[in-house]
């Protein structure tokens, strides 16, 4: 495992001057992923329409220190697969000598929802690409609308916490498991707070032959309404409460990467966030209970898949 001292010497592929919000998780996550690509490798980055795309390539400025392509919202998988197909064709015909890596980024909107078909197709076809989902759990680019990645109870502009309905009613889609069901060589789920784990996963994803998928929880200060500098605490709480478990599926083998030592109730993760504030009002206890049950149930199922004893951490 490389040290930060060594990693800091890899040239930045996402430079400053982009216009993401101050403290945006996407900036941190994207830098971490690209940092796992060796210095002498060439990269083509693909991007779905979304916060990352609109904030990094406002003509005539680009924050990408490598080749970059965006074409539309729902097709980052297809677009990058076209780039990769061109690479193979040109290599085969002897028109290209350099080696390239292909990494596509999409938000949860462009990945869980509108772009799922395109992503699924690209993964099934076996292109040698990495697809990274920067999951901030709602459509932040258009102003915090619910997505299928939005957790139960969250207050968004299309699942507002109202007098009758306390935020989003449905549980999150388990995209990481869906991607694992594609039987691709590498699937990983990571969080910003555990940067070493994230780095290792990015490295594996970039270096594996064939398609790889990373799902990274990317906190959004605006949409989640927490105190901006506390991004790492929020990320850490997501992991410790088992809301966002860290695991990977390598050649079909499920592996848990981190097991919290003690049982941290989900309230700890919900409390600092404005989007869950209404849940702490009298009468909404049942929603928190439902979230906790959902988290526990998924955790046990995950442990089973990973060949671990299905038990909750000691309280």
């Amino acid at each position, binding site marked *: 495992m490389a040290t930060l001292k060594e990693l800091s010497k890899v040239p930045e592929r996402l430079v400053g001057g982009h216009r993401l919000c101050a403290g945006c998780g996407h900036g941190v996550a994207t830098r971490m992923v690209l940092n796992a690509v060796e210095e002498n490798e060439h990269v083509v980055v693909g991007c779905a329409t979304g916060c990352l795309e609109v904030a990094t390539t406002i003509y005539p400025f680009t924050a990408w220190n490598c*080749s970059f392509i965006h074409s539309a919202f729902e097709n980052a998988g297809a677009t990058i697969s076209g780039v990769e197909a061109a690479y*193979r*064709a040109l290599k085969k015909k002897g028109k290209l000598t350099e080696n390239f890596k292909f990494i596509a980024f999409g938000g949860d909107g462009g990945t869980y929802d509108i772009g799922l078909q395109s992503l699924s197709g690209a993964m099934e076809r076996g292109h040698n690409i990495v697809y990274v989902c920067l999951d901030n759990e709602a459509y932040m680019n258009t102003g915090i609308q619910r997505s299928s990645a939005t957790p139960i109870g969250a207050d968004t502009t299309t699942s507002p916490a109202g007098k009758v309905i306390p935020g989003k009613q449905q549980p999150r889609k388990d995209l990481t498991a869906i991607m694992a069901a594609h039987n691709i060589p590498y699937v990983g789920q990571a969080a910003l707070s555990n940067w070493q784990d994230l780095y290792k996963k990015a490295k594996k994803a970039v270096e594996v032959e064939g398609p790889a998928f990373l799902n990274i929880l990317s906190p959004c200060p605006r949409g989640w309404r927490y105190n901006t500098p506390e991004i790492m605490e929020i990320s850490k709480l997501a992991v410790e409460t088992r809301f966002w478990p860290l695991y990977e599926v390598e050649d079909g083998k499920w592996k848990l990467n981190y097991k919290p030592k003690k049982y941290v109730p989900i309230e700890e993760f919900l409390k600092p966030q404005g989007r869950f504030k209404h849940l702490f009002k009298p009468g909404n206890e049942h929603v928190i209970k439902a979230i906790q049950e959902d988290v526990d149930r998924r955790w046990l199922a995950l442990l089973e898949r990973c060949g671990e004893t299905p038990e909750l951490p000691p309280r």
Partner: protein
Amino acid sequence: MKTRVALTGNEAVAHAMKQVNPDVVAAYPITPQTEIVQIFSSFVSNGQVDTEFVAVESEHSAMSAAIGAAAAGARAMTATSSQGLALMFEMVYIASSMRLPIVFPVVNRALSGPINIHCDHSDAMGLRDSGVIQLFSENAQEAYDNIIQAFRIAEHPDVRLPVMVNLDGFITSHAMDVLEVLDDETVKNFVGEYKPEDFLLNAKNPISMGNLDLYDFYFEHRRQQTASMEAAKDVIKEVGKEFAKISGREYGLLEKYHLDDAQVAVVVLNSAAGTAKGTCDELRKKGLKVGVLKPRVYRPFPHEEIKEALKNVKVIAVLDRAETFSTNGGPMFQEIRNTLYDLKGDIKVVNYIYGLGGRDLLVEHVEKVYNDLFDLKDGKSLNTVNYLGLRE
């Protein structure tokens, strides 16, 4: 060297694709285009081409992957019909705005609903304002020739736009026709090697493509696209002349058929132009001064050439195989009437909608049109918009 062969329209298109041997083809099957994808896949699996064939999961992804491939620096193609083109709609605009020279045959088919698999031009006309060059083909020969020329047009540095090559579903795509094909080497030399200027896989000069372009620059980029369309008119003619040298068949922006002394004329696209020309021949034998104008290029629209071609014809019918639902005629009628306005004079121009959903256009229909036009010339009245072969 030229060889006479009997091929269906789809086979002719696939044959042209094989001879061009593009770097990447990303396509999804849809009736009546399916054969193109199937035949081309067999070329790939038999090693007759070294193309990367990307069997995408939808037409939206087909054009998206073609965009990725073309942006990467490859010669890229796709192919579709009808609903497939409709699903691609968004990406066709993006391909043209990114100035990517993607060539794609469209086997014309009616748009749902109700669902129908047969020929009309609603699919192509739906994308007439997307910034792609649109070529139309009367028969398998023209479809074959257009595909080959399309690469030279699309990739020309003055143009750099996608080219859609249209041929009529079933009528052309599935009908066996006799055509002359060129030998592989001739096609290869004519098309030449693709040398992209701006491409993602340029290790020395990385590039950002598809960037966010707001009110301070978008307008200028749109204006550039229009200028490229303007330049495309000359390029299409130049390429057509060069193509004549290897094939003996010259192509321009349109084909004039007995227009010089025609008193009345019809304007019509694709396979129906053949039927119109046949009818014209019969009527000419009877001494009637009738003519046909067949636009080959619909985008860019050849306004100047059409004005020149029709300047002596006083009564004109435009035949449209698509509706606009403007309640004032089909798409080509609007273009032609707009163009003829500049000629001032006392030109009469009417519209006929025909052949929707594959309804056959018969010789009698065209004869009726010519008769109507003579009546109109003699002072009788006629609706502005008329229907051919409709139960009325």
